[in-house]
């Protein structure tokens, strides 16, 4: 068995008494004190996550833009240098290789940030698509460590602790910043539904930043609250709402594809066909009317018929109601449809609702 990897902050997590578990081959902090407190710190103040396990690839070459256009679902050509774009990479059949952020340095250089659990698969897939393009792809995951600082007070706290003014950094944009001798790449992005930043830098820099942030009162948050936060913002997680068996249309992520444009990309034809023949299932929101907790994989019923399954569900930490994302047959995906979820052999009633569980708190002004 391969030994688990550790991020450069592993010793810091141990020092903070985190509960540590293997995730995507890395020993990661699940929770430091308790998930609710960490979740609330991000909603109400500011928290931080070690996300150094994420994967980074650099795509460089004269035809980099043409290449990214082909492998990435979202538009990229028209985007400005310094922009960050969310989208997916698809197989020819339209199902999802991974979802990712694409950082546009310029027309000849891009940074891909992919899920830790998919690094090896993504890298080999991306490299396989380079035939015929004047482009090189390098997996630089081990050179990039990363902290996500998230919450309404993220901007104020980063200014206070690092003396970096990020007021002018727009939502879904990035820039290079200097802190002491370190070079930081900072984007105004995240995975929580709150304002905040993702900071990429060397191991030395990230270790230093982490310690400054801990001393400065930013709450360390584990993967437990990262999941409850992203779920309330209805942000998809690979292996749950999206996977190599699910298309962006089924996941409700058409907005992040360019299927209505002239530009081709891998998987586009399959999506157009799927749209033409009609979707058979889709990811919806569900709210239970009786207290119970809908968990991933629990089956959903309409009468005797099994009509789908829960992809993620919680007793929402912010709202204190049982809500879930679920993959349901299209005919039952209409808002207001009454359904039942089978929880430990009991049928718990609920209904289909929109996925806007929570109002997102992004700073989008001036974008």
């Amino acid at each position, binding site marked *: 068995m391969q030994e688990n990897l550790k991020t450069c902050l592993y010793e810091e997590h141990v020092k903070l008494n985190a*509960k540590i578990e293997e995730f995507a081959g890395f020993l990661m902090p*699940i*929770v430091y004190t*308790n*998930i*609710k407190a960490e*979740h609330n710190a991000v909603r109400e103040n500011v928290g931080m996550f070690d996300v150094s396990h994420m994967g980074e690839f650099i795509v460089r070459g004269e035809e980099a833009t043409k290449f990214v256009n082909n492998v990435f679902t979202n538009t990229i050509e028209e985007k400005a240098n310094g922009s960050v774009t969310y989208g997916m990479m698809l197989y020819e059949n339209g199902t999802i290789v991974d979802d990712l952020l694409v950082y546009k340095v310029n027309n000849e250089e891009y940074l891909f940030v992919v899920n830790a659990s998919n690094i090896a698969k993504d890298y080999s897939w991306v490299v396989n698509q380079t035939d015929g393009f004047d482009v090189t792809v390098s997996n630089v995951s081990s050179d990039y460590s990363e902290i996500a600082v998230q919450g309404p007070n993220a901007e104020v706290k980063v200014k206070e602790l690092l003396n970096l003014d990020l007021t002018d950094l727009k939502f879904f944009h990035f820039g290079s910043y200097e802190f002491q001798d370190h070079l930081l790449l900072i984007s105004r992005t995240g995975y929580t539904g709150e304002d905040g930043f993702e900071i990429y830098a060397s191991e030395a820099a990230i270790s230093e930043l982490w310690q400054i942030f801990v001393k400065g009162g930013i709450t360390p948050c584990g993967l*437990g609250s990262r*999941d*409850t936060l992203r779920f309330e913002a209805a942000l998809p997680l690979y292996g749950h709402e999206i996977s190599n068996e699910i298309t962006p249309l089924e996941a409700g992520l058409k907005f992040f594809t360019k299927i209505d444009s002239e530009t081709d990309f891998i998987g586009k034809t399959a999506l157009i066909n799927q749209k033409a023949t009609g979707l058979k299932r889709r990811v919806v929101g569900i709210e239970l009317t009786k*207290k*119970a*907790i809908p*968990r991933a994989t629990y089956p959903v019923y309409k009468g005797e018929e099994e009509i789908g399954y829960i992809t993620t569900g*919680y*007793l929402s*930490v912010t709202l204190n109601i049982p809500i879930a994302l679920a993959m349901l047959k299209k005919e039952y995906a209409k808002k207001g449809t009454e359904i039942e979820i089978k*929880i*430990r052999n009991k049928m718990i009633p609920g209904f289909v609702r929109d996925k806007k569980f929570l109002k997102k708190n992004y700073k989008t002004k001036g974008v």
Partner: protein
Amino acid sequence: MSKVVEGLFYSPDHEWVKKLNEEEVLVGITDFAANELGSIVFVDIPEEGDSIKAGAEFGAVESVKAASDLVSPVTGEVIEMNDDLVGEPELVNEDAYGAWFVKVKLTNPEELDNLLSADEYKKLI
């Protein structure tokens, strides 16, 4: 360090049993189990009149992150459920040995002999 209370019976599945009289017991989860689960946000426990069986699942206790089955340490009939826990599941974290889940009328009181003593349970955790 998790608390273990003298005079209770324990199961390897981290439930405790408190003898009220020859036939009736209270059942709950140990301090160790509560700590392992983290903040408990929901309990799913059987109602009065339900039968439970030693070694079989009889409900669940859920933290934010996950649901854990409750495995019954005894066989019998539930004669009372602790309603307080439904409204305030965090009581289990605050006082695991006060926050009983169900009161059970035992089918076979001798069954308690199969359970662990406080000392035996301490060695297990």
